[in-house]
């Protein structure tokens, strides 16, 4: 369906990534946001707090990030599209109820504007150290989707995509921004509402008598019923059967958890999004995401001036990871170079998929700044030898 025009601020704007993310959420139909102040993400909820009363949305500043995440899961069960926003320390607290959202199959969006950690770290300065936490941060096995914008325009566009993916697969979708993209101000074009596709909540058409909240009828994603529509269903963070009732045995666990993982894994081809440039015939491919993809581009150009055949692969969707494509490239290239603002996270995924067929060379940066393009260039030169 098309976006509700009330939430769409059509026009050409000069916005930072945080504001653009907030506008993307409103355009996507988000009407409930719970948040707790934390640098460098707070501008997202400040934008929403100011605009929501005029678009039919409710913002509440909760007492902490545990509460913010729990509140958006609750609100999502009313059919209201819901989001919370945070940075590393708050993201850690949200893991508890991100797991609940995954287990209850709750569509919602969590924005993490990453700063340098661990712990309080560098609150106002960039990091990309939450990438593995995004995938594995809550306990137990589950799968979700994470996106990484590289510009304010993408902060707008990908936030809409994040909501759409969360509706399609009934998972929490993580917007893995970083401080640079969040605080960078650039041109952002917001199209008219009738040119923005949004995915509505997939409400069941079954009667309350027939409906079972977790019956999938051979598919992978169950149909949704809102609280208050007469379905009188039960849902729980316990392992449950298709009625939503607790089922405390290994068989129910196998059936449920396999489906939770499969609904992303078996749809990975539809979800994964990467951007490649000059990977055909390349000796080295630079894999990057977020702000680092823009810095790495300069390093790539320096290496090309030295005559090295180097391509780039940018992760727009970070999780699920493009395993098949990395495997395929690994058979053709000498090495992958993976600059990221952490001490080696996504490079581990690249290394796993390359499986010894090509080297995977990390270019770590502890955070608080971005890479020197020359550092990326040197890593490329070395890897090409």
């Amino acid at each position, binding site marked *: 369906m098309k976006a509700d025009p009330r939430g769409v601020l059509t026009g050409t704007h000069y916005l930072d990534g945080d504001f653009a993310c907030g506008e993307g959420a409103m355009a996507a139909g988000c009407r409930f946001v719970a948040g707790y102040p934390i640098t460098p993400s707070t501008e997202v909820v400040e934008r929403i707090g100011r605009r929501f009363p005029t678009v039919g949305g409710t913002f509440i500043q909760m*007492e902490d990030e*545990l509460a913010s995440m729990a509140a958006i899961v609750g609100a999502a069960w009313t059919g209201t599209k819901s989001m919370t926003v945070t940075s590393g320390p708050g993201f850690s607290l949200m893991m508890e109820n991100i797991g*609940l959202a995954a287990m209850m199959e709750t569509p919602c969006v969590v924005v993490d504007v990453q700063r340098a950690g661990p712990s309080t770290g560098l609150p106002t300065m960039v990091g990309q150290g939450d990438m593995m936490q995004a995938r594995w941060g809550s306990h137990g096995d589950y799968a979700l989707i994470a996106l990484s914008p590289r510009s304010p325009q993408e902060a707008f566009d990908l936030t809409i995509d994040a909501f759409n993916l969360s509706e399609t697969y009934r998972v929490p979708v993580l917007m893995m921004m970083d401080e640079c993209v969040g605080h960078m101000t650039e041109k952002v074009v917001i199209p008219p509402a009738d040119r923005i596709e*949004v995915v509505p*909540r997939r409400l069941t058409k079954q009667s309350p008598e027939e409906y079972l909240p977790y019956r999938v009828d051979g598919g992978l994603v169950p149909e949704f019923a809102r609280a208050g529509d007469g379905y009188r269903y039960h849902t729980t963070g316990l392992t449950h059967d298709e009625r939503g009732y607790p089922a405390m045995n290994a068989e129910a666990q196998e059936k449920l958890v396999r489906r939770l993982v499969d609904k992303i894994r078996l749809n990975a081809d539809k979800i994964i999004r990467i951007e490649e440039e000059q990977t055909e015939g390349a000796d080295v491919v630079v894999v990057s995401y977020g702000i680092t993809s823009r810095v790495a581009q300069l390093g790539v150009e320096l290496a090309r001036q030295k005559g090295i055949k180097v391509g780039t692969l940018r992760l727009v969707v970070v999780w699920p990871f493009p395993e098949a494509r990395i495997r395929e490239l690994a058979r053709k290239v000498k090495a992958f170079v993976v600059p990221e603002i952490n001490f080696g996270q996504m490079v581990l995924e690249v290394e796993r998929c390359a499986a010894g067929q090509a080297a995977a060379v990390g270019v770590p940066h502890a955070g608080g700044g971005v890479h020197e393009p020359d550092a990326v260039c040197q890593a490329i030169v070395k890897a090409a030898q």
Partner: protein
Amino acid sequence: MSTEIEHIEGEEREHPITPYIRMDRMPHIWCPTCGIGTVVKCFATALGRAKVDLDKVSVVSGIGCTGRVAGYVKMDSFHSTHGRALPFATGLKLGRPELLVTVISGDGDLMGIGGNHFIHAARRNMDLLVILVNNFIYGMTGGQNAPTTPLTARSSTMPLGNFERPFNLPHLAATCGATYVARWTSLHVHQMTRAFADGIRRKGFRFIEVIAPCSTLYARLNKLGTGLDLMTYYRDNVEIHNGADTRTLDLDFQSSIVCGKFVDQERPTFLEAMHAHYTKALGDKYVPMPPEGGLIRGED
């Protein structure tokens, strides 16, 4: 004189609680003589008396023995994470303001791990009916010390007796801004049911504490006898004092228990305050979320 109850062959009568309970989940997990089942029965009775549309009732629980209530009530029911029932319920209420959102959970869940959420939900006067079953102990995990365990009472983690001062829950709720505060025991089914019916009809943050026996752990660890002995104890030691100063409601080990309705007042709820404020600040530009929620319906 005794009356014999006649069983008429072929006449299957439904138990009056059936419309409110997931009978397909019976038997429940609660121990014999546990007080939680009584609370559920009284809640169902109160819903019936208040003639509430059950389609619009949501029940949220956290984790623990009382946390299992959400799994047994035949309404939209959410068994959330440990301590987070209140923020989850806050989201439900704000996502669809027409719902009657009830939180039923235990003392460890709401006041231990969830204590911070409790004080803030009360401060905001969030429109929630909160029923807290207080059995003085963590039951589900085997009898550990709770923030409600009375001084000197034994628990599995304080086998020589508790030396931490427990919460006075009605006082905490009242000072944080709850608009309705009451305490009863699971023996007081009539008063408890009336309090629940009051809570269903009123707005804002309504808090009802129900003292309930845990014969399996609390009574056994403290050599208090059976569940029946605890009920007898409630009968003999409860003082009903409506309107009591909440500062006087501390519970000592095996002391008297003051019950009653302590607070019943009106104060703008979170949503009322928000609507009034934005209407004043924004006038015609204010677009509130509709009572049926913020769902954006597909038209194509």
